[in-house]
């Protein structure tokens, strides 16, 4: 197992280098001058020259590339044009907000999707089963930003149950440490803040989690249906085991591998969805920052942000692959 993990980690290196190359090329292969594109038509020659110098655009492409890779290895992604702070610092400051949102979204998606899928599978063709299938089909066809807008309209504007934006209410006394607000407020035993933070999390997390929830429910259902037809399930029932035991211990355990795969795949959807959800809910995370950087034509941030997202995505996929062995001992890694 350890050997396999090391092997897989080593295999990530060429992929990550490839990702870095693509991100580099996106900016440098386009026709025209990146400095001009960033500063716009009305930029003065002096400003253009300064930016070119700062970004090293005057050097030949291969030197620029070499410097870019060297800097990356040291964790240096350049400086933001907007704030002049190192890009990596800006990304690190915002990533916890995205992580927290994604975490609660996936908790919601799995927490509702898996039980719904199990319930649908043991009551095949019931009204609940049919309804959950319709919701699942709508879920994969729905733009996440529309769902977010509808949530804001219904639950924030009309009903007033939840705040429509941001992570924390005005006037709440709270000092972030790790920027994972939920963790921070628990560490500090600041429960007024914790309640407010969770209250702000509900709407965006459910909006972000709904589409993965629909897909997970669908996958759980079909995976469970397949297992429930197996002989050993019939045997288990026949020897008089309790229904609960058969379903959760015999069936669910064996249906888990495809469910985990789909949960892992949803993480990619989630990261993409975070960009949209954060934009709609003014959530100060990585996704919103990336979109703001695009509007401001802050290319170092755009580059760094995409690279960061892709790295997280690749690592999550690896973790999903490795987790198979935990749920299914038959899977052996060479």
């Amino acid at each position: 197992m350890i050997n396999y993990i090391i092997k897989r980690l080593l295999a990530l290196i060429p992929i990550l280098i490839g990702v870095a190359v693509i991100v580099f090329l996106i900016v440098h292969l386009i026709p025209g001058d990146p400095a001009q594109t960033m500063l716009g038509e009305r930029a003065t020659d002096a400003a253009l020259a300064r930016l070119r110098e700062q970004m090293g655009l005057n050097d030949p492409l291969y030197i620029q590339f070499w410097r870019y890779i060297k800097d990356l290895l040291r964790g240096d992604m350049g400086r933001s044009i907007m704030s002049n702070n190192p890009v990596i610092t800006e990304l690190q400051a915002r990533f916890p907000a995205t992580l927290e949102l994604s975490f609660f979204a996936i908790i919601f998606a799995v927490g509702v999707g898996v039980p719904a899928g199990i319930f649908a599978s043991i009551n095949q063709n019931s009204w609940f089963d049919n309804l959950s299938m319709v919701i699942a089909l709508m879920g994969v066809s729905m733009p996440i930003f529309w769902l977010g807008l509808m949530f804001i309209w219904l639950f924030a504007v009309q009903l007033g149950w939840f705040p429509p934006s941001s992570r924390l209410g005005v006037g709440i006394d709270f000092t972030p440490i790790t920027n994972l607000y939920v963790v921070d407020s628990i560490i500090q035993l600041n429960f007024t803040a914790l309640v407010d933070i969770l209250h702000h999390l509900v709407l965006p997390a459910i909006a972000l989690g709904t589409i993965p929830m629909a897909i997970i429910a669908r996958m759980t259902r079909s995976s469970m249906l397949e297992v429930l037809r197996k002989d050993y399930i019939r045997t288990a029932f026949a020897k008089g085991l309790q229904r609960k035991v058969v379903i959760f211990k015999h069936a669910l355990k064996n249906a888990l591998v495809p469910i985990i795969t789909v949960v892992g795949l949803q993480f990619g959807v989630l990261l993409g969805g975070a960009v949209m959800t954060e934009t709609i809910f003014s959530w100060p995370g990585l996704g919103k920052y990336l979109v703001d950087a695009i509007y401001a034509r802050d290319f170092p941030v755009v580059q760094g942000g995409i690279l960061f997202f892709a790295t997280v995505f690749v690592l999550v996929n690896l973790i999903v692959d490795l987790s198979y062995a935990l749920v299914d001992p038959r899977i052996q890694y060479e």
Partner: protein
Amino acid sequence: MAEKNNKVLKKNSNPWLEAWRRLLKSKIGVAGMAIIVLLLLVAIFAPMLAPYDPYEQNILSRYKSPSAQHILGTDEMGRDILSRIIYGSRISLQVGLFAVLMALVIGVGLGLIAGYYGGKLDMIIMRFMDIMLAFPSILLAIGIVAILGPQLKNAMLAIGIINIPRFARIIRSSIISIKESEYISAAKALGAGDARIIFKHLLPNAMAPLIVQTTLSIATAILEAAALSFLGLGAQPPSPEWGAMLSDARSSLQKAPWVATFPGLAIIFGVLGFNLLGDGLRDALDPKMKNV
């Protein structure tokens, strides 16, 4: 007599006809087809169906709620939302079809080369595809459009690019699984050239998964285009693109929720059509593929 029997056999064993019959029997497949046909008709006959000019502004009738005069209401410029949605179907279909066509042609080309010739070429192409798949796809599209400039044309290009790896992978795996079959060796022994083998023998056998992937990809392409336009990176105002309409609606959510509601429903309707047809096609073309 023998000849006649042969003919009957041939007629019954056309796999495409069989698949078509199975598709017509599947409820979801037929529902999907119906939605897509409706969407196509709306797009083609938009000028006849739309009650108003989708660009015509009327400051006096801003934010009118749905009524007999404006069935789906009006937006901040007093434009008729129904007419805009009708014209918007043209843009969404165009983007979906062109982007996927581009991905199809390039992806199939790369997949064919990789699968058929194998070796180093295969390794280089497929590693590159792996790298592209290492990006959450919408983010790669956002990156491409951010640099190329926010235009519908660029959004289409970006969506096409991010869809290439899926097609390449499907074709390559089909090719590899049939490349070593005896009938391909036989064709080679008879002196068939690479082109003949690829187009006459390999490609037709890889058709079923390709058709399913194309249909499902159009669905995601429409969603991706709407997302890019919503972020201001695709279709630009005053274009009646559905995602762009939603973007405009954000500021008026409180006083005119219908401006956001209906374009969203239009997106769901269109995307649902292609998803349903894709699911139906998958069952009809190859029941074994159900969980791909």
